């Protein structure tokens, strides 16, 4: 059969018929800072089918939590996602607080919001840097990482560590803002709002970036909703939903910010949503820092909480930089959780990789998958 076809091709009488081929991208990747495999079936240059394989980073996180007392899980929650450590710790603390039925002091809420938004900006900058290298522009990587460094320094100034911050506590935050933190935050944010335009110009003015991003990775709004995609990838598809605005936790209902939504549904709109989110985060940080200053120096920031959580169930969800993350806690009345379930946004988003890359060229796959901002620590847990 094969010989027959070869002959036909050689004489040029019949149209060329190619075999479909599975290309295995990963686990070591050009396009993600974790281990996962994307099996892509290609027909010539066009991807016809794709299948993500995850689980290389499975650490048994949820099971391990069952053997630890409640405060000891906080440093572990940091390590779910190194780029968004603050949000996961915050989420865990909020879940336990809900199970305990306590209300956190106002100041702690605002400090957590500031920490979350710093975390969101630095996570998006990490993503921007990754997109830059995926498309072969190292300058974007270097400049985005340079901007990120200022936010890492803010983390350092706030809680003494750059990445795995271990900052929120059940009932508040670890420490009050340090002396000159508000000054540093405002300086850093104002500087960032000017400096990020350099990086934006590198991407938006470059026809290489635009031709790679515009019109690739297209999803309709219905597909996006049915697949359960959340976060900036969803808002780039025209779904107007942000937990910070629609189901506010902490004090997000008391600050003024805009949720960017674009209807194009391609990679470029997801990129634009993320860039706009960084600016909105800057706004939230400025307003929250003003609120912290208005509350005064001696306002309480950490409540004393009981070490035992009453038996029951609680869940809490929040807007992670990558989407909607959720924790579900089942407590049996001891000082250790009976079960702690994590809903990771990327675990759901990566399952949409087949409709995302189907029909696109194989060279576009890295940038399409980069637009959901993979983080394997939280995916595999």
């Amino acid at each position, binding site marked *: 059969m094969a010989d027959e076809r070869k002959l036909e091709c050689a004489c040029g009488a019949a149209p060329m018929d190619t075999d479909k081929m599975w290309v295995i991208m990963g686990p070591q990747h050009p396009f993600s800072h974790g281990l996962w495999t994307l099996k892509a079936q290609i027909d010539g240059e066009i991807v016809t089918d794709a299948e993500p394989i995850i689980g290389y980073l499975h650490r048994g996180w949820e099971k391990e939590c069952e053997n630890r007392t409640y405060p000891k899980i906080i*440093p572990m929650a940091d390590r779910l996602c190194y780029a968004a450590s603050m949000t996961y710790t915050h989420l865990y603390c909020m879940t336990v607080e809900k199970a305990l039925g306590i209300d956190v*002091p106002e100041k702690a809420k605002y400090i957590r919001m500031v920490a979350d938004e710093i975390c969101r900006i630095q996570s998006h900058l990490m993503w921007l840097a990754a997109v830059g290298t995926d498309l072969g522009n190292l300058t974007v990587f270097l400049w985005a990482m340079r901007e990120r460094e200022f936010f890492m320094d803010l983390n*350092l100034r706030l809680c*003494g560590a750059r990445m795995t911050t271990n900052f929120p506590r059940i009932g508040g935050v670890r420490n009050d803002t*340090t002396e000159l933190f508000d000054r540093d935050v405002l300086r850093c944010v104002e500087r960032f709002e000017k400096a990020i335009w350099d990086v934006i110009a590198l991407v938006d*003015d470059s026809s290489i970036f635009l031709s790679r991003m515009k019109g690739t990775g297209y999803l309709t709004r219905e597909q996006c909703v049915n697949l359960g995609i959340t976060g900036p990838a969803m808002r780039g598809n025209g779904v107007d939903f942000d937990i910070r605005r629609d189901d506010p936790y902490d004090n997000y209902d008391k600050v003024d910010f805009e949720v960017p939504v674009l209807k194009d549904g391609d990679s470029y709109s997801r990129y*634009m949503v993320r*860039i706009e989110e960084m600016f909105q985060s800057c706004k939230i940080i400025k307003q929250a820092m003003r609120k912290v200053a208005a509350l005064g120096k001696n306002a309480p920031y*950490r409540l*004393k909480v009981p070490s035992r959580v009453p038996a029951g169930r609680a869940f809490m969800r929040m807007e992670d930089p990558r989407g909607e993350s959720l924790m579900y806690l089942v407590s049996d009345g001891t000082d250790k959780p009976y079960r702690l379930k994590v809903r990771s946004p990327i675990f759901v988003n990566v399952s949409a990789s087949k409709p995302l890359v189907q029909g696109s060229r194989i060279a576009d796959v890295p940038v399409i998958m980069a637009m959901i901002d993979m983080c394997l620590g939280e995916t595999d847990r």
Partner: protein
Amino acid sequence: MVKEYLDKYPRNPARTLWLMKPVAKVLKIFFKTIVHRPVTILYPYEKMWVPENFRGRPGLRFDRCVACGMCVRMCPTACIKLVEVPDDAGAPVKRPQVNLGRCAMCGYCAEYCPVDAMTVTPDFELAEYTRRDLIYGPRRLAYDGITEGMEIRIEETLMSDIARGEPERRVSPFMTDRPELLASKCISCKKCEKVCPVDAVKMVEHGVNEKGRPILYPEFDDVKCISCGNCIADCPKDALTLKEVL
């Protein structure tokens, strides 16, 4: 509110000057770069400034430590162990030893130390040739430099204080929480007296039982007690509980 990027950028009039813009941008960055100071440092010779509250490796103040084992219990990676070492007078005492190969630098040991013996230090250069060298014994763990953010104290606000209208009061759980005895369960085994690191437990006689042996109940010295919870953990009959003030 305005959208900073989405409103401005896609309709930016400067984009029409597509030829001039990159040139202007490159020139701007060129001049910026030749004027400003270098952003890098020559690392082994110069060092970055670290803030006071920087969380580096844990440090130990040998004399303050009472070997209560709070750091051992709180360590999320289980890298702390109590080992026996001679103190300054030569008598054997127990002090924490930290395996820095496993340490996650979370600062819990310093935060939950009731006597501020464990601290975080600004020391971050911890490279060694073997893993064995990464195990820091109590003497090697000592760090004498003192900065303000090094000893982390838990400053919490009680919910009852907020309800009473005193939100500015700060307490630490080691000041408020004290063990409580359920006398009906106590078998006078004196274990709590033996394990108490600060001698806050005293067995007090409460009459004799039917066999003529004295009935001893522990009494707790609230000033000396650091609420480390050793007596509660070691009580064979679960007669002791930690009474949490909330």
